[in-house]
Each structure stands twice: as structure tokens, then as C-alpha cells.
């Protein structure tokens, strides 16, 4: 016969209600701390395996192909359209001030500093992150991860490290592609549709966008790539049983990666702006 479950008895009335709410909050906080600790340990173990043992080429290359090559078209296409959309949205404001030739500065600065890296990371999280979570989740559910462990192989070394390295190494390339296509899209729309003179468009862009802006975007992308790989693989590794569990892991991998990308973007942006001020103490460049 099933044993009777022990039940916690709360004090009556409002004190009891308050005690229950405090207990709920405490449980939630403990859950959050445990989850964050778990992800950090997962990240440390991944970094440990990168150093401890070299990856095999035949394991790395398919992972790089899936993450980098297969993501390139979609990143290029979205970059192109975002560049054009920026031109569409900014043009009226700039024209009212008679500053439409400065459109290139705003579009290109926004792209290389923010939209290029964030867009490439978002597309990577959607296309690759959720796929990684689903793939590893399916491997967890079908005991393939247990099988790896039972054969004395480390699943983090075999499954996480190649994906982590793929995201880390290839997201800068995807960011460059998003930047390039965005700049191209913005210029094409501004020149061909809005009729802005190409000489002034590029001259103003060159004056206000420098190598630091470009490198700022690229350096942020490394953090985004690492975050996507770790969050997605962690969700896959800790997938709940069944098709529902795999689906939830894929969805959560994207949602949590996306939120983390935006949070990282804010703090990295603040930090890198301070770095810019440190390198150029004469203050920020004036766009207008």
C-alpha cells in the first residue's frame, strides 16, 4: 500500500499565508541559484575539456559546417533587409532636418555596433541553439548520452565542446556577414530608392564609423556565441523525458539565449563605451 505522504502544517490565518508566500519565494530563489550554479559548472567543465583534450577534426568539421556555413544565407538575408529597413525608418526624420546625406553614418554605426552582432546572434540562437537543444535533448531521452558515459566517454567533450567551439569561432564571421549585408542593404536603398548621393553617403559613414565600432561588435559576438552554445547545450542535457520535454528544451534554449544576448549586449555596451572613452578621452564623436 502506498505510504501516506507527510504534509507540512502552516500556522493559521494571515501569518500562515505570509509564511507560505515566504516559503514559495525562498524555494524560487533556491531554484534560481541552483540553476545558475548548474550552468556555471557546466561552462567550467566545458572550458576544462577544451584545454584537457584536443578535438578530433572529423568531429569538429560537421559541427562547424552546421553552425557556420548553414547559417550564412539566413544571416545574410536578414542583414540585408535590416539595413534597408533602417534606411526606410530614418529617412523621413533626417530629411526634415536636411541631413539625409548623414543617413549612412546612422545606419552603419547602428549596424556594426549593435544590430549586426545582435541579429547574427539571434539568428544563431533560433537556427542553431534550438536545434542543438533538441538534438541533445533527443539524445538524452533516447539514452544516447547515458550510452556515451557507460562506454567511459565524456559527453561534454563529445557533444558540447564541438558545438561550443563552433559557435565561438564562427559567430564573428556571421557578424561580419550581417554587418556587410546590412551596410550594403542600407546603401542600396538609400542610393537607388531614396536618391542619396553615394559620395556623401560613404564620406559621412567613413567619418563617423571607425575600427573601434566594428571591433566592438565583433568582440560582443564572442560572448553571444558562448552564451548561445552553453545555454542551448545545457537545456539539451537536462531535457525532461518525452517529446514535450524535447520541445520545451528547444523553446527554452532560444528564449533564454535571446534574453541573455540582450542582457549581455547592455552590459558589454556600457563596458565597451567606457573603454572607448578611455582610449579617446576627447569625448564621443558628434554624429550630427
Amino acid at each position, binding site marked *: *500500500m*502506498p*505510504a501516506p*505522504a507527510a504534509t507540512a502544517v502552516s500556522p493559521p490565518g494571515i501569518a500562515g499565508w505570509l509564511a507560505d508566500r515566504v516559503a514559495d519565494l525562498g524555494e524560487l530563489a533556491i531554484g534560481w541559484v541552483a540553476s545558475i550554479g548548474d550552468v556555471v559548472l557546466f561552462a567550467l567543465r566545458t572550458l576544462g575539456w577544451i584545454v584537457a583534450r584536443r578535438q578530433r577534426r572529423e568531429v569538429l568539421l560537421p559541427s562547424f559546417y552546421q553552425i557556420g556555413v548553414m547559417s550564412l544565407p539566413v544571416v545574410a538575408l536578414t542583414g540585408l533587409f535590416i539595413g534597408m529597413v533602417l534606411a526606410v525608418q530614418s529617412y523621413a526624420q533626417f530629411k526634415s532636418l536636411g541631413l539625409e546625406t548623414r543617413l549612412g553614418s546612422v545606419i552603419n554605426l547602428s549596424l556594426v555596433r549593435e544590430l549586426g552582432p545582435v541579429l547574427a546572434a539571434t539568428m544563431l540562437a533560433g537556427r542553431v541553439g534550438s536545434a542543438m537543444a533538441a538534438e541533445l535533448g*533527443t*539524445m538524452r531521452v*533516447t*539514452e*544516447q548520452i*547515458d*550510452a556515451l*558515459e*557507460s*562506454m*567511459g*566517454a*565524456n559527453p561534454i567533450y563529445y557533444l558540447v565542446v564541438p558545438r561550443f567551439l563552433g559557435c565561438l569561432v564562427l559567430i564573428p564571421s556571421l557578424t561580419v556577414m550581417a554587418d556587410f549585408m546590412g551596410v550594403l542593404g542600407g546603401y542600396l536603398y538609400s542610393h537607388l530608392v531614396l536618391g542619396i548621393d553615394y559620395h556623401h553617403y560613404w564620406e559621412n559613414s567613413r567619418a563617423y564609423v571607425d575600427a573601434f565600432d566594428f571591433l566592438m561588435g565583433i568582440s560582443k559576438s564572442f560572448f553571444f556565441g558562448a552564451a548561445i552554445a552553453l545555454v542551448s547545450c545545457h537545456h539539451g542535457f537536462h531535457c525532461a523525458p518525452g517529446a514535450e520535454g524535447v520541445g520545451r528544451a528547444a523553446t527554452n534554449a532560444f528564449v533564454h539565449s535571446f534574453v541573455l544576448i540582450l542582457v549581455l549586449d547592455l552590459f558589454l555596451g556600457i563596458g565597451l563605451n567606457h573603454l572607448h572613452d578611455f582610449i579617446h578621452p576627447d569625448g564621443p564623436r558628434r554624429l550630427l
Partner: protein
Amino acid sequence: MPAAATAPSSAADQAAPPLLQVDRLTVRFGPHEVLRDIAIDVDAGETLVILGESGCGKTVLLKSMIGLVRPSGGDVRFDGRSLGRLGDRQLAHLRTRYGFVFQGAALFDSASIADNIAFPLREHTRLSEGEIRPIVESLVDEVGLPRSALAKKPVEVSGGMRKRAGLARALALDPQLILYDEPTTGLDPIMSDVINELILRVRRRPGVTSVVVTHDMHTARKVADRIVMLYPVARLRPDEPQIVFDGTPDRLASSRDPRVRQFVEGRAGGRLDELREEQGLAAAGGRDDGDDTEDSR
């Protein structure tokens, strides 16, 4: 019965320390206790079958034996070494002395059958591809797989072939202890018996010890030297042991314990009413007579 023919019998065998010792093992998942104070010794060369109904913790026990499930209490020792005290690398090294045949075979989807079987050899030996190939071919011959299956992906072959490929992979490193998780589940009766025959053949390999988790009585009777039967913790009183039977297949057949008899005879008894009561449904309106035979497959 082949089991009796190969059962350890000499005084020296009896005196040898067990290959695997499960000592007061308790496993909890959150508030749910799955295993309670389990103590089992598995002697070298023996084939132990762990029987029990679905959800009684058989697979958790099997995974605890190889360190895939961390115990909440107690210990598992392989060849005298406590799994809980080993570091990741030591545990990984020790696992090369195990073979684990998973319920669904757990072959890697992205690799061919040949690459699946070769995986442990590539991971743990310095053999060249030219040396690995004949080993893989002899393993597929041993489990009765056609060589044409080697190039196929796991999804392209039948369930029975996947199980045999999983067994071939488990045998690749000549393990001392082979753990089988529900080896015949999901197979037709003929293929189930093929797997039983393979388990019997594998145990003829020198120094092989086997632990088979199953709810298939035919498999248990055919391959076991000894049978341990588990009962779900949720159905036990606090002072009752979870192991309700430990003995030979002959003794199982003559057991008078009603829990053992119910399982061996495959009777639902009043279980359906109990399940409905647990779910909060009123048994009063139920029309089930308690004597329906449960279809355990």
C-alpha cells in the same frame, strides 16, 4: 537448464569476493524514493536477473551499478572499488570493464552501425582503422547481424538488429560485467528468444558476469542463475524490504509470497481498483472484476 550447468559451485568460487556489491543503496528523485536499502552481491561469472513490475526501480538500480545514477545513500562497489569515491576520469576508466545494453539500444543516430560498434575501440584503444575493422566484423558475426548492416544508420534497421548492434557495441572491449536493460522489450517472441540465446552465449565468454533487468518471465527462467525481485517502494510498508525474492529460478517458481506469485502468474488482482483509488476515482462505480489477467507486454 543451462543456468544450472554453469553456476559457480566450487568452494573456491564461493569464497571469492563478489565482483559487484550493492550496499544499502537508496535512490531518491526529489521527494520520491525509488530504491530503498538495496543490498545485492553479484559474484563473478554469475548471471543475475532483476525482476519487477514497471516503475519498481529496476533500471535505476542497473544504472546505479555503473554510476550513471548517483545514490542518495549507500554505495556500489565494483571489484572492491567504490564508484562514489572515484573521480570522473577513474570512473570513465573503470567503465571500460562494463558493457551496457540499453533498452532502446541507444545507438548514436548520426553514426553508422559500424561506427557505433567501433566507438569504444576508437575511444579506449590505439588500434588502427585496419585493426578495428576485423574486430567489428567478428562482433557483428557473433550477434548474428548481416555485414550489409554495417554501413547503415540505426534508423534504417529493425528493432531486433538495433538491439544486437547495441550488444555488439557493449562487447567491443571484452567487458567483465554486462548490464542488460530490458533486452527483449519491444521485440517479437522469436527475436526475444534470439536475444536470450545471445545472452547465454555471451556468458560463455571467459570471466563474463551478467546482470539482466527484465519483466519478461521467459527471459528470467532461461538465462538466470539467480533472480532478485524488486517491489515498488510506494507499495511497501516503511519496515518492509524492497527485495521480495532472492534465489534460483526454481525457488521463484515455488515461492508462496503473494507478491511474487502475482508477478510470476501475471495477475492484475485488485491492482486496477487500487490504481483508481490512488488517482482519486471512486471504486464504487467500477465494474472491473479483480481477476483480469494483466498483459505485461
